[in-house]
Every structure is written in C-alpha cells, then in structure tokens.
C-alpha cells in the first residue's frame, strides 16, 4: 500500500513572524515521517519520528519550543497510539526531557500502563536512560517573553487572560 503521512503544528492565532518557520517545520516533519514509512518503518515509527522533528523545532509548543506554566517551568505531555491493537502510551507533566513522544512510546512498549504523570514520568525517563536536561534548556527567549507578558498583564488587570494572542475566543489553545 502507498504510505500516507500528515502532521500538524498546532491550531491557534499563529503570528505572522512564525508563518515560514511553521510551514518549513511541518514540511520537514511530514517528509521525515514519510521517509520512515518508505524505508519499511511502521506507522508508529513514522509518527514518533515526525513528532520528534516538531519537538526539536522551537517554532512549536512542544519539546524545545514549549511554553511556560505559571511558575515559569516547562511541563510536557505526549501520547502514541497503535491502531493495530489500540495499544497506547502517554506521559503528562514530565519535565526536562527533549522528546516526550519517545518516552510515551516506551510507556506503550515497556509497561502495562497507558499514562505516567509528573514525578513518576520523570523517574521512568531516568530508568530508560533519557538525558535529563538543565531546567533552562527547553526555555526559549520567546517562551520567556510571552510568560513575562502574561504575568505583567494579569498583574495589571487582576484577571486571567492569555497573552498568547489577545483574543479571548482563541485563548487557552494547547
């Protein structure tokens, strides 16, 4: 059968200055996933490879481009699902690793569980030999600036409001 691949880089009010970086990033990810498929890799291999490319690209809110929580920290979530038998693996609120999608795959392949969270996910990453990055490694200048903008704005108006795009109808998009 002809292999098929599609990727996304997030749905939100993407600012104009991110347009080319976003398009180039999703194209590279789709091509990498398709390369894996054409070389005989499985659908699971392909989606993990494609998402890894996107996690390594600071244009996207995942891995190296992740946004910051209220405390100014990165917390990452990821999932992988295999359509052959509905097996799946996921991690949530994991910190200081570059590629949570690869950790999610190991949850699927090496445990009897579907989801590991927080400290447990971090411990599992350590068990599996994932490199623990310095806490600042995944924090981009853009993420820090956006976080600071949010903190200043909420301090000024005393209300929750995402600084992400300024439009309440579009706020809160992961």
């Amino acid at each position, binding site marked *: 059968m002809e*292999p*098929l691949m*599609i*990727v*996304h*880089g*997030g*749905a*939100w009010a*993407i600012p104009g200055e991110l347009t080319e970086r*976003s*398009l180039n*990033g*999703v*194209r590279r*990810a*789709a*091509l990498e996933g*398709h390369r894996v498929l054409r070389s005989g890799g499985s*659908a*699971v291999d392909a989606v993990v490879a*494609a*998402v890894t490319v*996107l*996690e390594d690209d600071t244009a996207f*809110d*995942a891995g190296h*481009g992740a*946004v*910051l*929580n*209220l405390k100014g920290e*990165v917390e*990452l*979530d*990821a*999932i*992988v*699902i*295999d*359509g*052959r038998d*509905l097996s*799946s693996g*996921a*991690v*949530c*609120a994991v910190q200081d690793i570059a590629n949570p999608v690869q950790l*999610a795959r190991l949850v699927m392949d090496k445990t009897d569980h579907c*989801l590991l969270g927080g400290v447990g996910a971090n411990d599992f990453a350590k068990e599996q030999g994932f490199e623990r990055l310095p806490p600042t490694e995944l924090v981009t200048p853009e*993420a820090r600036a*956006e*976080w600071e903008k*949010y*903190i200043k704005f909420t301090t000024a108006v005393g209300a929750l409001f*995402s600084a*992400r795009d300024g439009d309440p109808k*579009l706020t809160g*998009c*992961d």
Partner: protein
Amino acid sequence: TVGAVAMDTSGNLASATSTGGITAKKPGRVGDTPVIGAGAFADNDVGAVSSTGHGESIMKVCLTRRIAELMERGLSANEAAKTALEFMSTRVGGAGGVIVISKKGEVCHSFTTSRMAWASVTQGTLKSGIDPGQEFTENL
C-alpha cells in the same frame, strides 16, 4: 501542540501528539494531549486522528474518538472532522484543529481556529498550509 498520523505500507494506522500546554497554566494542569480519544485516537478498523486546540473543550467532547465514531457511521474523514469540531464549538465553546487518515486512506485536516500549520505526503506529493483553504503543493 504538534501531532502526526500515518498509514504504513501494511495499512496499519498510528497517531501521536505532543504539547507544552498553555502559557502560564496552573502547574499540574493537563489538557487533552495525553488522553486517549481526546488528544489522539487510532484504530485500524476506523481511522486515526491527532488533535490540537483548547484542551479542556477537546476532552469534554472526546474529540478524536467522536471523529472516529462519525467515520464508523459512514461519514467521510473530512465530514467527520468538520462535524465534530462544529459540535465542540457549539456545545462547549472551544476551538481546535485535527488531522485524520481514515482506514480507506482519506487524508484530511480541519480547524476552527484562525490558523493551523499542517503538511501531508501522499502519492509523491507534499502538501502544506497554514491559513484556511490554503494549500501549497510540491511534487517530490
């Protein structure tokens, strides 16, 4: 949030999604991404989906499972994606986007936010876009 959906040469489907969440979210808040049937779904008998957007809304309507269910009922991948996103918008008020491959090999994307970056490779063609209705095409 980022995601990928694939069909391999054996016809097997898979999906994956990954996110850093929302700027200044409450520590410990987890959205749809790691939740089966919300952030992703895949079943060789139906299709595979990855989602992005307002996590709480996506979880409330089990967006990716809903799309699979609509395809099970006979809707095309595109119809199912649009119907489920519209349901989410009207029922719980959230916006988002999805990518889908059906078991029949239909490949589609749909979004209700102002923009979503996407790219696909099918039959030797790389397609991509970011604005509604936009599609760049490149023969590989």
